[in-house]
C-alpha cells in the first residue's frame, strides 16, 4: 500500500501564514475593523498600563497555572495577551456544526466499542487498534452509562491553515482543561476595556458553568430527581487546581478530594459536618488510573476505594466516563472520519490532519525520508512533550529523534507541519504575529451545547508552533461576533 496522500491544500511551514487580522496584502479583515479602529486611537502608554494592570489582577486573584511544592507563592501566571482573537459569526457556525457532529460520533463510537463493537465487526477500524490499546478499559465492557454519554465534556483542539480551512489536531475526551481561562480572559478584557464591548457585539461566554451544571445533572443516574453534583480534584497542588475550584464555585457545588468520599453498599457519600451525604454525579478531574485504588493503581492516594463498583452498579455517574481515552488516542484519531460516516451516515465537516502511522512499514519509510518537513508525536504523549517539529529542529535533533522512532516505531505518528494561522500579539519588541490554536469546549447531555468560541492559545516564541502552557504558551480572549 502506498503512503496516504497529503492534501495539497495543506500549506506547509515556510510559506505564507494566514493571519487572522489582515490578509496577504496587509488589509484589515472586515471582522477586525471595529477593533483595529479602536486600537489605532489608543495611546501606546495607556495600552502598556492596561497590560501591567492585567498581570497585577491575575496575580492578586491567584489565577495561576502551576503550584510548586512548598513555596506557595511561586505559582506561574499564564501569559495573557490583550489583543483578542476574533472569529466571524458565519465561520463559527460552520465550526459549531462540525464540532457537534464530531463529538456525537465519538460518543457513539465509545458506546459501540464497550458494547457490540459493530464498527470493528464491519472492519472499518482494525480491531487490534482498539482492543490492545492501553486506553481501552475492559472493565467498561457491557456497562451502560446514562444517555450513552461517555464524554460529556470534550475539548477539541482546532487550528486554521487557510481561509475557511480548519483542522482538528486532537480530541480531548478525558479531562480537558482551560475553560476557566476562557472565562477569566473575558472578564479581564471587560474590566480593562469596557468600551470595546459596548461597541462590538461579542457573543458572551460567562454562562459556561450553567451549561456545565445542566449537562452534569442531565447525565445523573436514572430516577434521581435532584442529583447532587461534585467536582473531584487531585488537590490544591495540582497544576489545574485553580480551574477545579473555579468551576465548583461557579456551579455552586462541593469541590471534593478523594478522601472526602467513601463508598458504602455500592453508593458514594461525602463526609460532611452533618454526617454522610449521598453523591450522584462526579465531575472528576483525575485520570482513570487514579480513580479507585481497588480497581486501578493500588498506590493512588487520590481516588476512592470501591468507586468502580458503585459506578458499574449505576449508582453514580462519572463525567467523563472511564475509558474515554481510547477515542482520543493518537492512534485512533485517523479513524474519526470513519466514525462519522459509520454512525451518522454523514460526511465529516471538520478535517483531520493527514496522519502517518509509523507502525505501518510504508508510512514509516516515508516519514524517515521526510523528517525535516514533518511533525512527529508520541501516540500516548500530551502537553507538547516528546514531539519533533521537523522544520524547527537542527540536524542533530532530527537524527536523535530518528533513533527513537526506529527503536519503537509503533509509539509514533507523523503529520505534515501545518502552517498554523497567526494573530498579532504583544511581545518584547512590540506587536508581532504569533501562531495560535483554538480549544472549544463541547458539552453533551440531553443535547450538544457550547458557548461560542473557546480558549485561544498562542505560541509566544517567534516561529513556534507549540501553544501548550507548559511550553511557554499564552492565551487570548476569543471573540465570536454576533451577526
Amino acid at each position, binding site marked *: 500500500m502506498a503512503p496516504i496522500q497529503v492534501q495539497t491544500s495543506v500549506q506547509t511551514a515556510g510559506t505564507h501564514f494566514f493571519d487572522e487580522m489582515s490578509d496577504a496584502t496587509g488589509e484589515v479583515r472586515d471582522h477586525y475593523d471595529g477593533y483595529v479602529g479602536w486600537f489605532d486611537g489608543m495611546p501606546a502608554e495607556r495600552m502598556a498600563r492596561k497590560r501591567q494592570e492585567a498581570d497585577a489582577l491575575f*496575580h*492578586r*486573584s*491567584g489565577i495561576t497555572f502551576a503550584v510548586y511544592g512548598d513555596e*506557595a*507563592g511561586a505559582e506561574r501566571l499564564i501569559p495573557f495577551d490583550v489583543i483578542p482573537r476574533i472569529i466571524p459569526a458565519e465561520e463559527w457556525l460552520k465550526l459549531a456544526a462540525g464540532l457537534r457532529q464530531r463529538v456525537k460520533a465519538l460518543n457513539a463510537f465509545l458506546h459501540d466499542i464497550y458494547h457490540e463493537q459493530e464498527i470493528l465487526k464491519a472492519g472499518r477500524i482494525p480491531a487490534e487498534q482498539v482492543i490492545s490499546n492501553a486506553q481501552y478499559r475492559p472493565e467498561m465492557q457491557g456497562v451502560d452509562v446514562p444517555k450513552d454519554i461517555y464524554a460529556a465534556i470534550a475539548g477539541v483542539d482546532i487550528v486554521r491553515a487557510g481561509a475557511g480551512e480548519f483542522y482538528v489536531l486532537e480530541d480531548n475526551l478525558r479531562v480537558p482543561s482551560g475553560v476557566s481561562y476562557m472565562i477569566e480572559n473575558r472578564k479581564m478584557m471587560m474590566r480593562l476595556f469596557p468600551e470595546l464591548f459596548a461597541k462590538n457585539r461579542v457573543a458572551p461566554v460567562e454562562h459556561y458553568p450553567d451549561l456545565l451544571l445542566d449537562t452534569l445533572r442531565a447525565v445523573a443516574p436514572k430516577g434521581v430527581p435532584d442529583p447532587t453534583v461534585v467536582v473531584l480534584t487531585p*488537590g*490544591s497542588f495540582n497544576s489545574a487546581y485553580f480551574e477545579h*475550584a*473555579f468551576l*465548583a*464555585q461557579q456551579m455552586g457545588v*462541593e*469541590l*471534593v*478530594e478523594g*478522601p*472526602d468520599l*467513601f*463508598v*458504602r453498599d455500592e453508593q458514594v*457519600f*461525602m*463526609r*460532611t*459536618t*452533618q*454526617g*454522610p451525604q449521598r453523591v450522584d454525579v462526579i465531575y472528576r478531574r483525575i485520570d482513570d488510573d487514579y480513580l479507585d485504588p481497588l480497581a486501578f493503581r493500588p498506590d493512588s492516594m487520590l481516588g476512592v476505594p470501591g468507586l468502580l463498583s458503585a459506578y458499574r452498579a449505576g449508582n453514580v455517574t462519572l463525567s467523563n466516563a472511564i475509558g474515554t481515552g481510547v477515542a482520543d488516542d493518537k492512534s485512533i484519531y485517523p479513524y474519526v472520519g470513519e466514525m462519522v460516516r459509520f454512525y451518522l451516515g454523514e460526511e465529516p465537516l471538520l478535517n483531520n490532519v493527514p496522519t502517518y502511522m509509523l507502525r505501518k512499514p510504508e508510512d514509516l519509510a516515508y516519514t524517515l525520508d521526510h523528517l525535516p518537513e514533518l511533525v512527529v508525536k508520541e501516540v500516548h504523549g500530551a502537553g507538547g512533550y516528546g514531539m519533533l517539529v521537523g522544520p524547527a529542529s537542527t540536524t542533530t535533533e532530527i537524527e536523535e529523534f530518528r533513533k527513537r522512532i526506529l527503536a519503537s516505531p509503533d509509539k509514533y505518528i507523523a503529520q505534515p507541519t501545518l502552517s498554523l494561522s497567526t494573530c498579532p500579539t504583544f511581545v518584547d519588541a512590540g506587536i508581532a504575529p504569533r501562531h495560535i490554536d483554538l480549544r472549544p469546549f463541547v458539552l453533551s447531555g440531553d443535547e450538544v451545547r457550547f458557548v461560542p468560541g473557546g480558549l485561544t492559545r498562542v505560541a509566544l516564541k517567534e516561529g513556534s508552533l507549540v501553544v501548550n502552557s507548559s511550553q511557554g504558551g499564552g492565551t487570548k480572549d476569543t471573540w465570536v461576533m454576533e451577526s
Partner: protein
Amino acid sequence: MLSRTADHLYWMARYIERAENLARILDVNNRMLLLPQSEREVERLWRETLDSIGLLDAYHGTRDKIVPAEAVHFMALDRSNPGSIYSCLRAARENAHAVRGTLTAELWETINTTWLKLREYSIERMGADELDAFFEWVKLRSHQSRGVSFATMMRDEANCFLRLGTFIERADNTARILDVKYNFINEAPRRDDASEYYQWSALLHSVSAFEIYRKVYRDQITPSRVAELLVLRNDMPRSLAHCTMEMSHFLAEVANQRSSETQRRVGELAASLRYGRIEDVLETGLHNYLTRFITRINDIGDRIATDFLMPVAA
C-alpha cells in the same frame, strides 16, 4: 459542608488570629523594653514570652542565649519556625487556597495579598520604628480579613466555622498573654508608680483594652481590674468570657448528632466566666486559673475536631 472544608476554614481563621496575637505580643514587649531595665529583666521577659507560646525549646534548639533582636526575628519572620507570624500567615493562606471556592473572591484576594506582601518583609532591614509598623501591618491585615469576611461571607456554616476558629484561638491567646505579662509585672523589682503604670498600660494596649479600661473603670489601673477586664467582662471583645460566649453561640449553630457533649463543656465554661467573680479567680491564683482554662480550651479544640472536622468512619 464537607468536613475537610470546615477544617480548612477553621484553621485559616485560627492562624490569622494567631498571627495577629503574635504581633500584639511582640508589640507589647517592644513597648515594655522602652523603659529602663536590667539586662536580666529583659532576658526574663523574652524567656517567659517564648515559654508562654510554647516556643522556648524550639528557640534554644539553635541558640544558647536569648538575644532580643534574635527572638523578635524568630517569632516574626523565621521561616523555619512553624510558630512564627510568617509561618502562621503561610498556613492561613494554604488553608484558604485549599477552599478558595468557598471563600468570596474578596476574602481570598485579601488573604493572598497579605501573603504576597509578607514575603517582601525582612527583619534585618527593619529599624525599631519599622518593626512597629510591621506589627501594625500584621494587625491591620488580620482586621481586614475579618472585616471582609464579615461583610461578604454568607451567614452559613462556613461563616460559623470561621468564627469558631477566630474565637477559640483568641480565647487561648488572650489567656497566654495575660498569664505571662501579669506574672512578669508582679514579679518585677518594685520601682516607682510611673513605671508600673507604664507596664500595665502596655499590656492593655496590646489587647486593645486601654481605652476600654478607662471607660469601664474611670480610675487608676490595678492588677485585679486588669484581670477582671480580660477574664470576665462579657462586653470586652478579647476577654475570655466574650470569646467563650461566642464559641458557644457558633457551636450551637452547627450542632450535629455527635456534638452535644462539646456544647455542654463550652456552655459550662462560658457560664462560669459569665457569672464568675474576680475575687474567686484571684484566690486560686491567676496563673493556676489560666493554666486550667487553656487546658479546657485545648480539650474543646480536640472535641470540635472529632465532632466535625475529622472524616467520619465509613
